């Protein structure tokens, strides 16, 4: 039971922290205006 609680905690905390970092980074890069696949591939670089 304790293993499940620890794993659940890791999934929630690590998953949410990762997504928050992504959210912050994508806003720093700037809004996507060009939706062509090549432009999207170049966008985070």
């Amino acid at each position, binding site marked *: 039971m304790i293993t499940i609680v620890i794993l659940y905690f890791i999934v929630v905390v690590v998953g949410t922290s990762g997504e*928050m970092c992504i*959210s912050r980074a*994508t*806003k720093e890069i700037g*809004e996507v205006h060009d939706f062509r696949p090549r432009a*999207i591939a170049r*966008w985070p670089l």
Partner: protein
Amino acid sequence: MSGQPARRLKTLVMMIIIVCSSPVGYIFVSKGMKQVGWQGWSLPSIFHFFFQGFTNWTIWLGIGLLLAYFVAFLVVLSWADYSYVQPAASLSYLIVAVLAKYVLHEVVTPMRWLGVIIICSGVFIVGRTHVRSFEDLAP
């Protein structure tokens, strides 16, 4: 493409991609992993498990859909709030429950359906707000 209506439209399109590709991707991965099956912790079993996984087209189809989900998630986060995107993306739980019942033939209990309905209610409330928080505060 600029302004609030345009931003709402592109957010809607991205959210549709997120909400559809994520659960279907997970269903394919789940189906593929069950086809592969777990054979034990011995080294040959683990090698066989990974080999079977890498050569299973259902798993690759699922990975492709999850990649599409991730790209759409990144793109939408470039202009929308995380506190908007994450709850709105939870609508995929409804699709997961439906697909689990009819594709994977899992038993979805009334209690789980109740949970899904509560999640959908939350998604509806979040959907009534602006995609960027400062637009909510603007006069």
